[in-house]
């Protein structure tokens, strides 16, 4: 909507634009039956997101093992979850894995994306190959890497100079490394796609002007491409954070939260409490903690990055 706005009034100063936004519906001058159009999506969202979320809130105050009737136990689950050292640890682990994901995947996918946006001859073929992981299910990816990283019959057995004894899932650092690596392998193509699209949208006149001014390839990258990718970067990072906080199947298949509880991230811990220990109340409480944390982090990111009042990168052109 904002882009549409800016197209209507490209040079509007910020204050005026904000005021204009409140009348967005009328800007285009087309009458739309607002609620009716939104109804199907709203109903769907309510039935499959809002209602279950409310039920989880109720469940978090109950004790239930999956059979029989749930009983109200007040704040008991919450007290247990917030006092649980594994829970606290799991939040830090979730943040660590998410942070690692952003830190590794962002530079990689920017470079790949900008490269793939060019018009080299081999580009189409190589890009197609790079995007293959995107087509595979997360479960399949985890299973394949699990087999490839087997200490006795996988790559580590052949490359001892790199993997040492190959006990990748037996130490916290290497287990976290494996998880970060596998999600990098799996999700970098997706973010590359975002950056590729964004890099293609950079107006060529900017580069032409820079060339006239004598800017080299690196200066062009740092002073034109990167600033132009700002909005894409924010989008991709928010997706990475949300995806990172809800990572689950990779942990389930590769480490099962082990060794001990050393890779038990919050999403997996929730599953473990609810579906392995049949303590659905505690599972619901953990799920809510996760929802709150993810919402908070997203809000902070949106605020800090100015995503909510995102400016067009083509302003003034």
């Amino acid at each position: 909507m904002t882009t549409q706005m800016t197209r209507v009034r490209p040079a509007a100063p910020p204050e005026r634009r904000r005021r204009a936004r409140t009348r967005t519906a009328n800007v285009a001058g087309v009458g739309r039956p607002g609620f009716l159009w939104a109804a199907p999506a709203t109903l769907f969202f309510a039935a499959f997101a809002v209602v279950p979320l409310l039920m989880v809130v109720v469940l978090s105050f109950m004790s239930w093992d999956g059979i029989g009737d749930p009983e109200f136990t007040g704040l008991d689950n919450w007290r247990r979850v917030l006092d649980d050292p594994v829970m606290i640890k799991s939040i830090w682990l979730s943040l660590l894995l998410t942070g690692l994901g952003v830190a590794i995947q962002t530079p990689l996918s920017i470079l790949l994306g900008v490269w793939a946006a060019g018009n080299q001859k081999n580009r189409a073929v190589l890009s197609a190959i790079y995007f293959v992981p995107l087509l595979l299910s997360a479960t399949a990816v985890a299973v394949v890497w699990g087999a490839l990283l087997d200490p006795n019959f996988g790559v580590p057995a052949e490359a001892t100079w790199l993997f040492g004894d190959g006990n990748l899932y037996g130490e916290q650092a290497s287990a976290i490394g494996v998880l970060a690596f596998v999600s990098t392998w799996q999700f970098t193509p997706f973010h590359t796609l975002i950056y590729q699209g964004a890099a293609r949208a950079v107006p060529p006149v900017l580069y032409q002007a820079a060339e006239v001014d004598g800017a080299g390839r690196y200066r062009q990258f740092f002073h034109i491409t990167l600033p132009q990718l700002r909005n894409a970067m924010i989008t991709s990072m928010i997706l990475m954070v949300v995806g990172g906080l809800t990572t689950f199947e990779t942990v389930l298949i590769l480490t099962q939260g082990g060794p001990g509880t050393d890779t038990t991230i919050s999403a997996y811990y929730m599953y473990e409490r609810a579906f392995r220990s049949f303590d659905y109340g505690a599972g619901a409480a953990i799920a809510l903690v996760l929802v709150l944390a993810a919402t908070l982090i997203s809000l902070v990111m949106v605020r800090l990055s100015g995503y909510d009042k995102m400016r067009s990168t083509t302003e003034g052109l």
Partner: protein
Amino acid sequence: MKTRRRMPRILAGGVALGLALTLAGCGDDGGSASGENEFTVLVYGDATNEVEKKLVAEFNKTSEVKARLDTIPGADYQQKLQTIISTPQAPDVFFHWGGGSIKPFVDADLLLPLDDFVKKDPGLKDNFLPSVFDASVVDGKAYGIPMRGTQPVLLFHNKKVLDEAGVQPPETWDDLLAAVEELKDAGVTPIALGGGDMWPTQMWFQYLYDRIAGPELFQQALDGDKEAWESEDSRKALGMIRELVDAGAFGDTYDSVKFTNNGSAQLVASGKAGFELMGSWYYSTQQSLNEEFAAEDLGYSAFPAVDGGKGDPANLAGNTNNYYSVMKKAEHPEAIAEFLKLMYSDTFVKDQLSIGNLPTTTNTADFLDQAASPEYSTYQYDLVAEAPHFQLSWDQAYPQSAATDMHKAVQQFFNGGLDADGFISAMQALPTS
């Protein structure tokens, strides 16, 4: 409209009929997991399924009400079962491990007591070994019919590897420690362990505790006496496990190896490891992976004795048997009763034996010579028949809600994440009822 008028009547009628049938089909699915004249049988998914498939096919040849077999791959069985059991998708007949694992279902009044079946056909009880049949009796009522084989945990080995290192299957704990050194010198991992699964690690605890303290200590702990874990015997067992791990018996990578993806079994079959402690199903696992190895080089022995231990060296640990239980909501109890009778049929006993399982029917002894490996089956049969005590696996004996925390505790004690005190308090924190 025009096209529709031209459409031949028959075709239109056919389409309408088809739609109606589809709708009817939907209605059925909404009500119950099984269709009309059908009941579902849910089984733990592993190599034994081929026998169950054959049995169901056999049953369906003559029965009007058909059985449908569903399997859930091993590691996820218990939580999937618990998730669906009180929903309309619940199976009519399902597999379990006996007593402790169905207690919550009995308490929730979901299961059909089988005493009426037994009254109509006493064979449903009399044809099974009493101790095994009784392990699925809850509150004085029978809830399960034994349906696979008894599965004691044995110490398996690769004969070739042991021969080359000059090692004999150990009879005592000291023999085992010596064998570990010899095998290390020979350049192989002495004992393969699927530590990534965690339950194989626990087998070492349940056997060693039984050998040192006898079955009483664990029973006390299970009855709620948390002091049991702090006893001298408990600390002695933990010290011996520590010694074995520190001696390098399991190599360095056991936490990255799993049994459920055949990783540990491959280690033994390929000669990279000497021993593996595993349930008797190990034979069929190896058979399905590598038939030649299972037939020629797979050796086995009982868990070694511990000098001065209170437990009888003839005691066993593992799964007493698996059972079929019937849901109260099942619509075809008569057909299910007929189906359950097959569990003591001669064909069933022979088929189980042919893949290395050991059924617990009274006529099992008659067919031992027809087993896949008569020697192996006879060996097991004698062990079970002579064992003064058969310890149900710890994670099955405790309530299901304790299993995850127990598994983490044994894993962390093995890899040094917990010391003896840490392990003891982790075990004390487990729910016992």
